[in-house]
């Protein structure tokens, strides 16, 4: 890993400083956009299913969306570590799994609106707890997913 130049990627969806990302829409625009759309549909339906199974009142803690966002963050950490290890992997892997499935599964709009609705419903404690728990849980999950995956891949290479 240390012999490779440092990965300039910040954005998991698309980062124009990464050569492969910059060129992908010119080489195969329809395939890329279809892969993202298909992944997005799968991710969104999984999210809707979980939210439907575990609804919350306006003053309650949105456990379903909390679980969706933190688990999606764990998985993006895993995915990007694997793809980084493979030098990018299959050209459709990041668009389908990262931009599509995980991007469609996790949601920032429901996070923001649920906090706002808890405030409107007179539950500032729930709003603040949900705001902080999701944020800290999501960041820790990305770090954990990345660290565990990178360690496992290093052991595999060392064997």
């Amino acid at each position, binding site marked *: 890993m240390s012999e490779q130049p440092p990965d300039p990627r910040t954005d998991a969806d698309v980062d124009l400083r990464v050569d492969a990302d910059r060129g992908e829409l010119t080489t195969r625009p329809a395939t890329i956009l279809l892969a993202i759309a298909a992944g997005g549909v799968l991710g969104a339906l999984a999210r809707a299913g979980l*939210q439907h199974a575990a609804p919350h009142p306006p003053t309650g803690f949105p456990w379903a969306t909390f679980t969706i966002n933190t688990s999606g963050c764990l998985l993006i950490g895993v995915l990007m570590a694997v793809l980084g290890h493979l030098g990018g992997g299959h050209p459709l892997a990041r668009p389908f799994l990262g931009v599509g499935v995980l991007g469609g*599964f996790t949601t920032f709009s429901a996070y923001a609106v649920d906090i706002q609705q808890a405030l409107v419903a007179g539950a500032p404690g729930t709003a603040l707890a949900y705001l902080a728990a999701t944020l800290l849980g999501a*960041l820790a999950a990305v770090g954990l997913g990345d660290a565990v995956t990178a360690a496992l891949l290093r052991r595999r290479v060392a064997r």
Partner: protein
Amino acid sequence: MTVLLIALGAAVGAPLRYLTDRAVQSRHASAFPWGTLTVNVIGSLLLGGLVGWPADPAVTALLGTGFCGALTTYSTFSYETVRLARGGHRLLALANVAGSVAAGLAAASAGYALARALTG
């Protein structure tokens, strides 16, 4: 029916996030993830408006759960924050967190208030 509407909204929302992110990045070459911030704020504004509007469940499924849900992303937002912090851009990471949460909440509140005002 609801499943189809969610799928349709997501099939548009997810590619639109990707295209918006590209368009924003091509205009603002910077380490700060302006593209993701843009889609997250727009999606929060729209979803806030939908929640404030006495919307039909079909409209909520299509535009709220499907479109806004897939247009916005928590995984990319978190990944970017961790990458910024690890790359030595701690201040940008902090700004991304504070800026995204503050702007997302402000947008959700504005959308909600606007919809409420319009519908009386």
